[in-house]
């Protein structure tokens, strides 16, 4: 696979819970090194799509190609290998409350590498410094703010130098400044490590600040109703829902198509 090849290819994917289908016929490519936004209104299935992409729930039908592997039909070993090369930042950081930040970040390294404890400590310090938390190794999640918890969660997601990092609503619950700082950090990580970043969000400032590519999930149509760069979608909205979403519904008359 070359640099231009998609790192993730989704083909005719249908997702949902048990018998209920939430989204169907989802097909899109995520290029390597991209910052890809999955956007849409509340309850449209963004998080469900993310959970399907990360293997937390099974797809109803379709295929997800991650690099050259069919992720849905892959065996447990192949799935584990793909999961090890992916990092996920959950909404609240999902740090283990009984562990310090250093222990949280060290956990995947202890699990999947044969590094010495001393070297793991060095990597942990470096990853925490990357997200601006140098010196916070001995703190517990309950002793730091929500924004710091997210950054620590990002440090843990980056512990194994993943090729893909998924973000579930990274700006949720953050003040505008912390939210912007996190957006800047996502851009830096993407630029410096070349990591492919997939973000599920409905926060407009974040979408326009970091998004290089996006898809819009339409709850009514139960599929993708728009795709492209977010700023271009704003200039040339393909339908009224997208325009209303990207302008917070303020000028929907102009955008009606």
């Amino acid at each position, binding site marked *: 696979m070359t640099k231009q090849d998609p790192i993730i290819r989704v083909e005719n994917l249908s997702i949902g819970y048990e018998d209920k289908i939430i989204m169907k016929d989802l097909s899109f490519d995520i290029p390597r090194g991209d910052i890809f936004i999955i956007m849409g209104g509340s309850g449209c299935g963004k998080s469900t799509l993310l959970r399907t992409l990360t293997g937390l729930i099974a797809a109803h039908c379709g295929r997800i190609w991650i690099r050259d592997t069919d992720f849905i039909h892959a065996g447990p070993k192949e799935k584990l290998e793909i999961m090890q090369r992916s990092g996920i930042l959950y909404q609240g950081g999902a740090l283990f*409350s*009984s562990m310090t930040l*250093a222990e949280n970040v060290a956990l995947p390294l202890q699990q999947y590498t044969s*590094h010495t404890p001393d*070297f793991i*400590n*060095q*990597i942990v*310090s*470096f*990853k925490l*410094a*990357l997200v*601006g938390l*140098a*010196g*916070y*190794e*001995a703190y517990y*999640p*309950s002793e730091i703010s929500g924004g710091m918890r997210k950054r620590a969660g990002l440090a843990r997601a980056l512990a194994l*130098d993943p090729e893909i990092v998924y973000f579930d609503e990274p700006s949720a619950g953050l003040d505008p400044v912390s939210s912007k700082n996190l957006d800047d950090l996502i851009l*830096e990580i993407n*630029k*410096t*490590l*070349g990591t492919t970043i997939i973000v599920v969000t409905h926060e407009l400032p974040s979408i326009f600040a970091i998004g290089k590519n996006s898809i819009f999930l339409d709850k009514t149509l139960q599929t993708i109703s728009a795709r492209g760069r977010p700023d271009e979608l704003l200039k040339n909205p393909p339908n009224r829902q997208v325009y209303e979403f990207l302008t917070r519904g303020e000028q929907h008359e102009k955008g009606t198509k």
Partner: protein
Amino acid sequence: MIDIQTKGESVVCTLKGVLDGTARFPASVCGLRHKKLQLLGDGIESWNTDFVAILFNTFKHIPKEHISYSQLPQGMEQLLRLAFQAPYKETQMTREKQPFLEWLGDRGIQVCRCVKKGCLFLCGCLFAWGRQLRGKAVYRSKDFWMILADCGPQSILIVSLISFMVGLILAFVGAIQLKTFGAQIYVASLVTIGMTRIMGAIMTGVIMAGRTGASYAATIGTMQVNEELDALQTMGISRVDFLVLPRMNALLLAMPILILLSDVMGILGGCFVCVLFWEIPLAEYIKYATNSFYLTNFLVGVFHGLVFGLIIALCGCYFGVNCGRNADSVGAATTKAVVYAIVWMIVMTGVLTALCEGLGI
């Protein structure tokens, strides 16, 4: 390959060849603080983030203004700039041990606060009961029936099984001793008096503390984590009225019935042993058991049960309401609810037994 040269106040670090996690820096440059660092790339063939982590940890004490980069691969330079962006803050990997006296003082203050909190909670519950009697307490009757179903009918099987086994054990142990005097027929009396007076209540109490008390603490604790308790408070609904009262009422209603069941099952357990193992005729067992059944003993047992029900509900709800806001706290609250309920039940058994003795009951 790493080449280090010190020129006055500056350290020049030249990086060449393959740079990975096996690279090592001389100990003399580790922990430098006041030097200027010049990082030179000279024909770097390949590198990875493990090497960058080592490089960062070697020079992490040097402020970013004192570091210059030259001919480093773009990605490596960007990573280093990002890592050095914030001034490094020294951290202690382990917490300092608290001096004993300080620890003792802290614990003392914590205990006082807990006692105060517990007393306030108890008063709050008593007032809520008062409000309920006046018809002013707010809670959903649907909740009450659901909680009652959980702590009543759904507990029948486990209470029956455990009580049957306790009766069986009492009969076995008692009969071995009584047999030496040829008085094994009195096993029926031993089991009947033992179960109706105290054992039925204690066993039911322990089961309900583990089953229902823990469930109360976990449910309310999870509500605390999900900010549901805050929502109740902001809506002006009393947590005690809404959450504690239905649980307390349900247990107070269920406990006497469960104790009656426990007594019967215990006596049946004793009967099972006597008839099958000690060859005591069934009619004889029933006769002795009936003769040893005193209403006073049964009522004392039921009263114990009511007190235990109150203790279990209060402990479960108290630790649930005062639970922290993370996953660990729910586990801790559940454990505390069970442990404290059992401890208080044993303490109250002692108090009530002494009281009954004093009153000649």
